[in-house]
């Protein structure tokens, strides 16, 4: 049986579905008996959403995109020369 500090340590691994079978079983067994850790797990879900929400994809500013396009065209030109 794991204690609360250990359960908290596994919490984000749990949210990322990264716990192996045995640590997962221990974690879930702890949740069955600990309302405090259930509350913290729910809080962790919201905290995770707070970080995940903004800017997962950020539109590139037009001037940066132009610069990147020029770089990518260099590659296309090189491919064309190789093909010839």
């Amino acid at each position, binding site marked *: 049986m794991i204690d609360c500090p250990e359960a908290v340590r596994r919490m984000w691994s749990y949210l990322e579905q990264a716990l192996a079978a045995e640590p997962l079983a221990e974690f879930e067994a702890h949740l069955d008996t600990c309302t405090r850790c259930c509350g913290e797990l729910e809080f962790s879900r919201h905290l995770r959403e707070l970080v995940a929400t903004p800017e997962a994809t950020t539109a590139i500013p037009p001037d940066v995109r132009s610069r990147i396009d020029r*770089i990518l065209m260099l590659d296309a030109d090189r491919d064309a020369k190789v093909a010839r």
Partner: protein
Amino acid sequence: MGDGTRVATRASAAIVPMADSPSGQAVAEDRPFAAVAREHLDRLYGFCVRLAGNAADGEDLLQESLLRAMRAYPELREPDRAKGWLFAIATNVWRDQLRARGRRVQTTSLDGLDENGDNFSLFQTLAIEDPFPYSDELHLDFLRLFRDEDVQAVFGAINPVFRLPLILTVVHGFSCKEAAAVVGVPLGTLLSRLHRGRKQLERGLWEYAVVNGLVTEINEP
């Protein structure tokens, strides 16, 4: 990305050779690099800005990463896994840029610290300090105080070693195993860093809220 993925940790060899590639031959040439890059460009840009900590450095990081990726592209065996490959290259370029600026990326000594070294719990602190005594949703009300720019400010102050796993998993949806491959560390190390990053995030949010007057810290005599 998956079990067969090996990500070179050095920037000079930022290649993702696939151990289970059936032919062992490079197949990246089947699709132009520009097409692969454009497919992931917005996400890669967001990653670079978050990793570098600001837009100007993020743009430089993106540009250098694409140049390096372009050179290494013929050696990419599985273009379907290009996203992780591009992120790994950006991570290596970022490390190199920090080194070039004389800033060392701490890893070993930080990982070696007691994992319980940071025992701060935002959940518990909120329950004890009770900054919204009449709230039925104390913890959620606290999180609702933060605008995007507040979150970014706190996020940007997290040690980059611990911020990186958060960016990869929480923001960009990599599994922990994939993120470990991108960073070039074992899964256990990645999970430990993820936990430490989360702890720094919790402490950072509380301190930011107190310093900026979002909450009033209550100190009982």
